[in-house]
């Protein structure tokens, strides 16, 4: 799944512990939720100041979804 790889590539580039990055797609009828897990110490790296990094990742995800005519949401889990 390319979209899973997209989030994985971005998250791995952002964190200190790339081997601890996992993305699990949970497919619903209308929407696919991507559950992103990172090492607890890397949480701030994927969320960013006032959530700006997470917001930027969601913007990229939304645009990729538009190309596929599918909806995706990103959940960042501890």
């Amino acid at each position: 799944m390319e979209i899973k790889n997209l989030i994985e590539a971005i998250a791995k580039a952002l964190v200190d512990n790339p081997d601890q990055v996992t993305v699990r797609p949970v497919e619903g009828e209308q929407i696919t939720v991507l559950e992103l897990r990172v090492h607890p110490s890397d949480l701030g790296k994927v969320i960013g100041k006032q959530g700006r990094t997470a917001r930027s990742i969601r913007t990229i995800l939304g645009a990729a979804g538009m190309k596929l005519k599918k909806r995706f949401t990103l959940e960042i889990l501890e």
Partner: protein
Amino acid sequence: MTTQLSPEQAESNYLARIGSLVGEIIHYGGFDLKSTVRKSNATGEGPDAAEIVVNFEGPDSDLLLEKNAALLDALEYVVLKAVRVDDELNGRFSFDCDGWRQVRAEELKLTALMAAKQAIETGSPFHLTPMNSRERRIVHLALKEETAVRTMSEGSGPSRKVVIYPTTSPS
């Protein structure tokens, strides 16, 4: 990573990492875009204008520039964060598409001048729409010489915006 790199080495190091992450995002995101790196000799706006520009072109340029270039800004933010560009180098990198940065800067300058005029005429502060730090800076600089107003950034996070205050009462 304590090895001392020359500025040129540091720069080509960043460029390689920027290029590889941008490539992955374009590929996995299914974006129909091509990116090229352009070095300008800082001939742009102001002494610290971006010197290294990652330029995008292709059929998905429109997608990149929708909603005031939300996707272009998001890409720039994430990629520069990931590459961890030193603070002193950060302003030197910029992502662009179809000359957007220049067009947007001109648009912001015009907006700033019109808003200042309105603030002076009405004698009340003019609140601009929320902008990121680069865009707020353009507005502040555009009105630096205008003594009839002073500008402040107010609010926090994504809702931070420039407010233009008249310094004189309306005549």
